[in-house]
Each structure stands twice: as C-alpha cells, then as structure tokens.
C-alpha cells in the first residue's frame, strides 16, 4: 500500500472533542469523557486537508466547493486513544463544467486505525469540486 499521500498519528483529545461537540451542538459535549461526534474526524484531518488544498493538489479555494462527506465506523472513537491516520486520493477526475471550462472532482479517504496494532476503526471520505467559475455549491 504505497499509495498513501500522508500518514500521521494523533490523540483523540478530551478537550478537542468537547470543543467540537459544543460547536456542533451535540447533547453529549458535557459527558465525562465526551463522546466524539460523528463528524469529529474532520478535526484529526484538518492539518492534512489544509496541506492538500494549498500545497499538494493545490486548489483555488474561492471556486472549490464541498460536495459530500462520509464516515464509516467499525466502532465508536474513544477519548484518550491514539489513531494512525492514512490519507489517499480515491479518485481525481475532470469533466466539462455547466457553464464551460473544466470542473475537477476528487475524493480523498482518511483511514482511521488504532496507532498500536493498526486495527482499522473507520474511514472518512470527502468529495470536493473545483468548479470552472465562482463557488456555487455548499
């Protein structure tokens, strides 16, 4: 598996989980420990996504929109655990835009695994679209 663009290890930090849960108004933000909300892995991948968009691809942010986002969990994430994240591009395609020009669609997957042992606990997948013109999606 040499197709990973990046690999990093991160802790599922109590305070990061709590702050994120508050930001998305999750009822369980005040639990001790808090339970990571379904979309929490975006926190774990934010540095990578920033580097992907600004340096690795790179994309014109003013005309890039977020198309879809998906999470798959084999079990819930746990506060205090360390995860090994590995990112790869699942697809990168170009097609004609609705108003002319080229539209680029790419799907990135981040695999979330236990840092010790490498058991995969889930996946995050994001679809982004660099439109031909100004940002027009969500």
């Amino acid at each position: 598996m040499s197709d990973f663009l990046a690999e990093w290890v991160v802790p599922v930090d109590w305070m990061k989980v709590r702050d994120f849960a508050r930001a998305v108004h999750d009822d369980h933000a005040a639990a001790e420990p808090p339970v990571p909300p379904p979309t929490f892995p975006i926190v774990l991948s934010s540095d990578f996504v920033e580097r992907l968009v600004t340096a690795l691809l790179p994309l014109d942010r003013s005309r890039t929109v977020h198309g879809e986002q998906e999470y798959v969990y084999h079990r819930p994430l746990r506060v205090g655990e360390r995860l090994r994240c590995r990112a790869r591009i699942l697809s990168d395609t170009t097609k004609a835009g609705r108003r002319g020009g080229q539209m680029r669609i790419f799907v990135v997957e981040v695999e979330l695994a236990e840092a010790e042992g490498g058991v995969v606990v889930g996946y995050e997948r994001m679809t982004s679209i660099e439109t031909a013109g100004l940002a027009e999606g969500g």
Partner: protein
Amino acid sequence: MSPPPAPAFSYGPLTLTDLVRYAGAAGDFNRLHHDDAYARAAGLPGVMAHGMLSAGLLGSFVTRWFGAGCVRRFKVRFREKVFLGDRLSAEGRVVGAVEGGYALELALKRDDGVAVVTGTAEVAYP
C-alpha cells in the same frame, strides 16, 4: 424493538460567533467562513457557513435520536449554501432495519423548507 421517534432539533439564527466557534474547534480557517470582504470578492453575498457545521448539526440530531456513539455510517451531500441568519432544523426517518440497528434518511432544512444538507446513516440501536 421499534425505533424511538425522531426528536426535535433546530438551531439558529446562525451568527458569526457560531462560525468562528466551529472554525476554531474544527481547525478550518478558510476565509470564506469568517472574512466578509473575501467572501464577497468570491461572489458570495457574505460569509458562508462551513458545510461541515451543517453536517455536524445533522450528526448531533442523530446522536440526540439514537445516543452517543450510535453511528456506524453517516453520509451527507451539501446542496445549498448556508449564511448568517439562517435557521436550520433537522428531519429524519427510519427507512429500514440493519443488523443491530436502523438505516436512516436525513435532511437539514432552512426555514423556507429548502434542504441544505441531505444524508443517510446507519445507527446501532440495541
């Protein structure tokens, strides 16, 4: 065992503070989400909420419904931009049973009834 009824879930009107709080919590400092001049230069009417804030709200609807840590699969599609002042409410329905849980269809709607995010999920429910 039958699934619990969908709870009420609504939020808003969205403020810049909501967006800044999300930006800080998520580590997403794309200027479209906090810099009004930059957003307007990009052709928007003003700063736009993070799509992932809407996705997160929809996720919080699911955990209110089925409990923390219930999600096995969660997939959303971003359909409409969300701006300051928008009020959002979540809707969902059970569309089937899966091993040890349920399959759901989800939508986050503006006050005018337009779905800004739609999605599907599978949740564990004993």
